[in-house]
């Protein structure tokens, strides 16, 4: 058991290490000289200042460590990261770590609420759809799912916003994060994620209905509701795993919704920084997101292992195969 935990932990660290390498390489590959970006283009400086400009550029280069080898630059960066130093924003001059930490609660709150909404929608309608398979109820749910899954996120957001904020006046538009403002963006985000979960819950339930233990439970004279419970217990584990994993896409996918609803989360912060070409912020944002995703995957793996894995061992292969 502990060996398994250690292995998962080690794997997570290797993944994180590879991810930092990728981010580092991407940044070094980017066209444009960061020094020029900070000081402005030398052509714009007056000719007499050429010497002064070069001096300042060289100084900055040394300060940023850009004159050293790639490996040294990388280790220096990692060294700072370990001390939780994500660098400072070019634009505002504030520490990126602190800025992200200040905005993380807003995104976390939004994602958690959306997760709850889509889990409830997914489990409920998925089960109902499976129970009514082939009947009008099932067809209606599937139709709504396909339509919802085909609608761009911002359309859902804008439609809900114009209905609730503009037409009904039930929602106040501002850039504050608060519980009273949470429900509409959370609902939007939940609606976007729900179709996939509904589809998966339905498919899993139907697959379970065909299994012999369901026939066997029926043959023991158990009622329909009781037998559905049997199937649910087997069908739900992969769905719950899926819900947990969808947290990653919620956190990253919140960008659009945060932008539409002016929700002050990290997505919006990153987006604003991209338009300002604020490299350290982008770098810090990417790193935080990747670490969060790895953390979520690790947690799901560990919880999955804690539930007696042998019971589900035969089933895992099948669940993985579901499209």
């Amino acid at each position, binding site marked *: 058991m502990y060996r398994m935990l250690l292995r998962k932990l080690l794997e997570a660290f290797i993944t994180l290490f590879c991810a930092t390498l990728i981010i580092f390489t991407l940044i070094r590959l980017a066209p444009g000289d960061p020094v020029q970006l900070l000081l402005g283009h030398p052509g714009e400086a007056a000719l007499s200042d050429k010497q002064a400009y070069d001096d300042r550029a060289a100084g900055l280069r040394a300060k940023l460590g850009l004159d050293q080898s790639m490996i040294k630059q990388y280790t220096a960066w990692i060294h700072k990261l370990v001390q939780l130093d994500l660098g400072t924003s070019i634009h505002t001059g504030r520490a990126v770590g602190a800025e992200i930490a200040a905005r993380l609660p807003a995104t976390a709150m939004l994602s958690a609420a959306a997760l709850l909404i889509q889990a409830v929608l997914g489990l409920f309608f998925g089960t109902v759809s499976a129970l009514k398979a082939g009947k009008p109820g099932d067809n209606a749910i599937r139709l709504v799912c396909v339509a919802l899954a085909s609608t761009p996120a911002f359309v859902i957001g804008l439609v809900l916003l114009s209905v609730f904020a503009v037409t009904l006046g039930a929602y106040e538009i501002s850039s504050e994060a608060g519980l009273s403002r949470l429900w509409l963006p959370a609902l939007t985000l939940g609606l976007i994620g729900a179709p996939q979960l509904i589809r998966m819950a339905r498919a899993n339930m139907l697959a379970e209905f065909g299994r012999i233990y369901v026939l066997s439970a*029926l043959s023991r*004279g158990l*009622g329909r509701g009781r037998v559905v419970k049997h199937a649910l217990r087997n069908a739900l584990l992969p769905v719950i795993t899926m819900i947990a994993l969808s947290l990653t896409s919620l956190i990253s996918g919140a960008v659009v919704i945060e932008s539409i609803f002016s929700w002050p989360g990290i997505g919006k912060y990153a987006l604003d920084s991209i338009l300002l070409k604020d490299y350290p912020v982008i770098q810090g944002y990417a790193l935080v997101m990747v670490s969060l995703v790895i953390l979520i995957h690790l947690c799901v793996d560990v919880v999955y292992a804690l539930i007696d894995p042998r019971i589900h061992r035969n089933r895992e292969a099948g669940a993985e195969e579901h499209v």
Partner: protein
Amino acid sequence: MFAARYFGEDTFIMVKKELETMLQITNLQVAYRQGRQSVRVLDNLSLELRQGEILALLGESGSGKSTIAKAVTGLLPPSAHIGGGTLHIGSTLRVDMDMAAGKGRGKGRGKGRGKGKGIQWEGIRGRGIAMLFQDAQQALNPVMKIGAHFRESLLYHRLASPDEVKPISIRLLSQLGFLDGERILECYPFQLSGGMCQRVCLALALCLKPAVLIADEPTSALDTVSQKEVLDLLKITQKELGLAVLLITHDIAVANAVSDRVIVLNKGVIEEEGDTRAVFSKPRAAYTRQLLSSRSQIAKPSRERESSHAGEPLLEIIGLEKTFDGKKRVLHDVNLALNRKEILGILGGSGCGKSTLARCITGLEYPERGHVMYRGADISRLRGKGKRGLCKHIQMVFQDARASLNPGRTAMQLVQEPLQYMHIGNKGERETLARFYLHEVGITGDLLSRRPPQLSTGQCQRIAIARALVLRPEVLICDEAVSALDMSVQAQILALLQRLHKQFGFSILMISHDIRVLRSFCHHIAVMNHGSFSEVKRASALLHESKQSYTQLLLRCAGDMEEGLY
């Protein structure tokens, strides 16, 4: 009427009272939708099951025997359509099977499992009719402990208070041969073997005190020893409780071992019905005679056949060891020699490692230790080209013939496949060779251009044999090659293999769990148990000479079940 036949006129009145009818099926009609057509499986079938008897329903695949079990419990799949029929359970309950049959038909598609939506199946299943399934391990919910299954059944049907559940279940389990019922209740299904699961399922069925028990191929997935064990327990508990049991099986030996009466079913029609002893000793219907003769063809003790000459063995296995996942030891110090033109049988229960041995010989697995010598050279660790060259010498036929053939290719294409891989001959020569071998196995005419989905399982196995022989191998490994086939097809395939063996003179390594098949077919039999061979004996002498308790046990189990069948 039947009672009169068994016991004579004078006992008729008394016996009739005792042998109350527990389950009566009248004029049952079931059809399956296949695409746009509907295929009729049961046509006006009627049968009667009396108290305290085991009625065997004997039939080959496609005879509709399982459909009967599903129809009377309302568990038919949505594609099935019940045309009509009546069901009497006990003396009071009457069910019209076509009650709601018209409802779905109007829309042209099935509605709900097993039709008859108007029927209150919950009241019938469990208390009225209990059921055993073929794969017992799959019949238990994988995420529930055994104890939870009992608790749920007993409490749901209000047969016990929460405190009584545990003692009742433990008592039932001990009746079914579990001495440590307490531990079993805490187990998950995957922790128990197939035989144990089937006994648990039987206990679960009995805890509801059903009027009728339907057992659908309850022992087909088990090895000989557990099969015997489960059947014995079934028989004992049935006698104790005076239960009416409908035993559905394809195996004459199973029907012979436990049943009082037997019904022979062929393509949805009852061919013969009567006392088990009478039917099997003096069959009246031609179909029953045919079934019995294919069985005796398979099971008759082998004539004294000696492999032609000894000398250097063709294939020799020395000290072979194989483990899986670094822990589970599958093969342990396996030694075996196969002579030229010899037919050697490998006998063993499920999980004894016999299939792994076959995979090691053909290079599908690499052993950890030991050697597989073919004509004096070690072939167990060949890789790449060398390993591929091996297929000209050693070939294999698999249990699931259909799955071993690519469904998209015709018989002709399939047999040419190995020739293409080995770059043998040109297109014309390959076709001639393929046609020749297919002719030898009895695939001719328009069958040559058919694909596996359009062929029967027996025909698929014939093609697989032709495909294995087209490279003229010296050794043919048959891994349970006939186990999945109906008895009559089994006899045909075995006869075919025997003829081909005589004609082409290759050696055969026949792997099977079925002692009957091996005894009639092989020169020698090697008995495998827990990953190694306990003994190798001449087939004809196995019964008398065997010293090993395991072999004796296997032989006894098989022998008991066949008593009086010759």
